[in-house]
């Protein structure tokens, strides 16, 4: 199957941005009936390459061949017409429209919207992906994970020639990943050329027929199907790490994150649970809008110095849990106490005074005001309070000084403290949030998907911050859809399923299987409702 002519090929493609070469002389063939894995760190040039295939950018040099003929992919629409469907890392749906409306968007303007046919295709794809989404739910009200599932459907909508998946598994359960793998295999067997971008070697090995490694904009290695088939998983790991870092003794932690075997970093912190719990939640329930998942009778205790990981498929109430703990969302019933004080009725400012911190997953959506300066964003939750405000009057010199100190302390890469925070990279925006939330007065911290969209280095930094915070005596809740991440940082792992805490297990041997079972609802009392 690798002898056939490439469906899509890039030839000597170079793409420059001011100050960086994103792609340098890249040549790759993508064949029909092949899952081609692209591995590489953020900044390795994968996204740029995809951007060019998807028609969002044009190469400065070199060409893109489709079926052997050089083609200028002028626009995303053109790319779709050529049969290249892309699922981007960031959600590109219209939030105010419903799921089915989003899926019907691709048609020409003169075509009538055929809802019946669209629904049929929707059901088909739902079956294929094994997901249950309300087709009439407004996309903006879905969780990020569900939105991504809709994105995958959208890319599959017309049964394209080429399907590009940019980190598609980061939000799925182990079972969901397996299902996606099955979908990919089916599509591959139908002759689709799949391009899979991932950080995780396990996935590359499990799903890939061919692996290419990118580093600093160049293709630094290629494992063709014959060779890949003959290799064991650990051989692949070694080979790829060598390609990526130029040495087998690569940064041990990078390799761990890459392979998803980060357990070694989890120090066996002994959590003292003899004292009083720092955070107590009892039968907390919330009310939800259509399409969102509310909390139902969530109870747990959290002790100082402990990290509680919350696993689960996105959209099972995690967002509500984070918001209800932060005071951003009202608990419909139940009780929340911090260090023995009932804070159920308190809003964000009062909770903050009790030391509650919330690092949101929507860094630009709600965590920061993109158009405002880094300095302003660093004090966004202190507006009106001393020392930065005296009798309501802003002390801008002090706010800017504070920002400069935080920028230095947290190694935030920004031209200036006055730069709008929206211009920074995701990793640096996250550093701004961490700097704002984690200070000496913090006693309970909630992290929602703390490493979503971050590169290896920033992922490592975020994990270090979480562990260091726990070691300093904070009680920490980490919500993540990345089980490997939870295995690395958590002392206990709870699973959210349809708004319930399906169970809490100690982090240790065999925890993956237990969590996996809880995630799919197999062990909770509500199996009947399970998808």
């Amino acid at each position, binding site marked *: 199957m690798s002898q056939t002519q490439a469906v899509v090929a890039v030839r000597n493609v170079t793409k420059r941005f*001011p100050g960086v070469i994103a792609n340098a002389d890249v040549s790759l063939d993508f064949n029909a009936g092949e899952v081609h894995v692209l591995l590489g760190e953020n900044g390795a040039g994968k996204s740029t390459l995809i951007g060019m295939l998807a028609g969002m950018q044009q190469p400065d040099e070199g060409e893109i061949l489709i079926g052997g003929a050089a083609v200028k992919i002028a626009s995303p629409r053109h790319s779709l017409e050529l049969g290249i469907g892309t699922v981007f890392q960031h959600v590109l749906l219209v939030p105010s429209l419903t799921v089915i409306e989003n899926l019907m968007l691709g048609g020409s303007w003169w075509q009538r919207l055929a809802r019946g046919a669209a629904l049929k295709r929707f059901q088909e794809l739902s079956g294929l992906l094994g997901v249950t989404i309300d087709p009439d739910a407004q996309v903006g009200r879905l969780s990020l994970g569900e939105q991504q599932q809709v994105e995958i459907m959208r890319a599959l909508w017309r049964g394209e020639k080429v399907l590009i998946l940019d980190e598609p598994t980061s939000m799925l359960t182990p079972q969901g990943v397996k299902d996606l793998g099955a979908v990919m295999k089916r599509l591959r067997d139908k002759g689709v050329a799949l391009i899979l971008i991932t950080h995780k070697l396990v996935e590359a090995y499990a799903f890939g027929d061919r692996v290419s490694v990118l580093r600093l904009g160049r293709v630094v290695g290629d494992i063709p199907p014959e060779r890949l088939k003959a290799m064991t998983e650990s051989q692949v790991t070694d080979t790829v790490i060598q390609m990526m870092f130029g040495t087998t003794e690569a940064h041990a932690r990078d390799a761990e994150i890459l392979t998803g075997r980060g357990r070694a970093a989890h120090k066996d912190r002994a959590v003292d649970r003899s004292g009083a719990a720092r955070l107590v939640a009892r039968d907390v329930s919330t009310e939800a809008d259509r399409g969102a998942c509310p909390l139902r009778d969530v109870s747990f205790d959290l002790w100082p110095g402990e990290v509680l990981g919350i696993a689960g498929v996105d959209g099972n109430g995690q967002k509500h849990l984070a918001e209800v703990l*932060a*005071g*951003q969302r009202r608990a419909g019933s139940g009780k929340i106490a911090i260090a023995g004080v009932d804070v159920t009725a308190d*809003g*964000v*400012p009062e*909770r*903050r005074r009790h030391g509650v911190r*919330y690092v*949101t997953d*929507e860094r630009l*959506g*709600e*965590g*920061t*005001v*993109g*158009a*405002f*300066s880094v*300095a*302003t964003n660093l004090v*966004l*939750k202190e*507006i*009106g309070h001393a020392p930065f*405000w005296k009798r*309501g*009057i*802003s002390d*801008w*010199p002090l706010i*800017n000084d504070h920002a400069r100190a935080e920028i230095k302390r947290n190694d935030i890469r920004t*031209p*200036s403290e*006055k*730069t709008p925070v929206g211009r920074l990279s995701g990793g640096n925006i996250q550093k701004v949030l961490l700097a704002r939330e984690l200070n000496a007065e913090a006693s309970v911290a909630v992290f929602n998907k703390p490493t979503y969209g971050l590169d290896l280095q920033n992922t490592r930094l975020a994990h270090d911050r979480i562990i260091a915070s726990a070691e300093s005596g904070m009680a920490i809740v980490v919500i993540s859809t990345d089980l490997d991440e939870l295995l690395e940082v958590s002392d206990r792992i709870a699973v959210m399923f349809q708004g319930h805490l399906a169970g809490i297990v100690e982090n240790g041997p065999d925890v993956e299987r237990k969590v996996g079972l809880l995630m799919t609802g197999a062990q909770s009392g509500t199996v009947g409702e399970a998808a």
Partner: protein
Amino acid sequence: MSAEAETLPGQLPGGDKLKEIGAHIARVLIPVLLALIMGGIILLILGKDPLAYYGYVAKRGLLTWGGLQETFTRMAPLLLIGAGLIVAFRAGIWNLGGDGQFLLAAVITSATAPVLVGTLPDIIVLPLCMLLSIATGALWSVIPALLKARYGINEIITSMMMSFLGTSFANVLIKLLFWDPATTVPQTRTLPVEDRLPRLGDSTVHSGILIALAVIILVHLMMTRTAFGLKLQVVGANPAAAIHAGLNVSWLTIATFAISAGLIGLGGSVEILGVFGTVRADWNPAYGLLVVPLVFLARFNGFGTIGFVFFFSALMIGGDSAARRIGVPNHFVLVLVALLLIFLAVVEYLDHIRRKKAR
């Protein structure tokens, strides 16, 4: 024309400040010139002499003492409306109900001031009427504010609807309650000239202009240098972030509406206390929506608004007289403002592309 950029003192990257200010001025002056040229071309097409038109506008609006005084007098209500709009727009609240708020406040002022001057000294009556007008304006914003805060109902629609109701209600109030029995046309009782806002020196300009300038500068400082102003800006720039940061968005929405409508109401009061002394039932200058583009042109900046209001007032005053002499419709001034808006958007767009390329 975006409401996104935060205007905080010293928030520009150091060093480039002068260059940045220069670019700002260029971004305003180029559209002004283009609008005047385009307006001239339109006049030519209409068979009128553009130079004569602009000449009369400049002469009547700026270059004669009497015209300049009229220009300054006209600025007072416009500046107060501008101040009210800045507060609202910066907080992301599109209070387009200015006309109703303005007119009702004017009617309440003209209904109370002539009655009170007989019993109380002017020094008490004038501020009292102003406070009353602020309360009236604010009161007329309560319904859109509550609907927005409580149910998220689009305030553009509700405030405009309240504006139509407000202008009609003002009319009804005059005809049913405040009709001066001494007149045949429906109008309120008239505040004697000697009891109105004092003139500045021996000019015809009343002291309302000072109040207006003070208010708009205070509003500018409030938005840029106080916690309250920053909170409003956070709500305006990213409501989700405001909730995340624990701001009471509902309360801030209601407060914003009250301040905005109150200041617009003050504008109505000042116009009555300074200029007319009475409200006729058919009087509606419709300043509320006129000021909206000016505030946009100034990017919600108080000082910028002063400049544009001055420019626009001169155009209005001069345009009136020029229109009569040249035979151009009065509303040609609005054509110029519309052209200005279009060219401002075009220049902004080109500038945006240029900066994107430079990055």
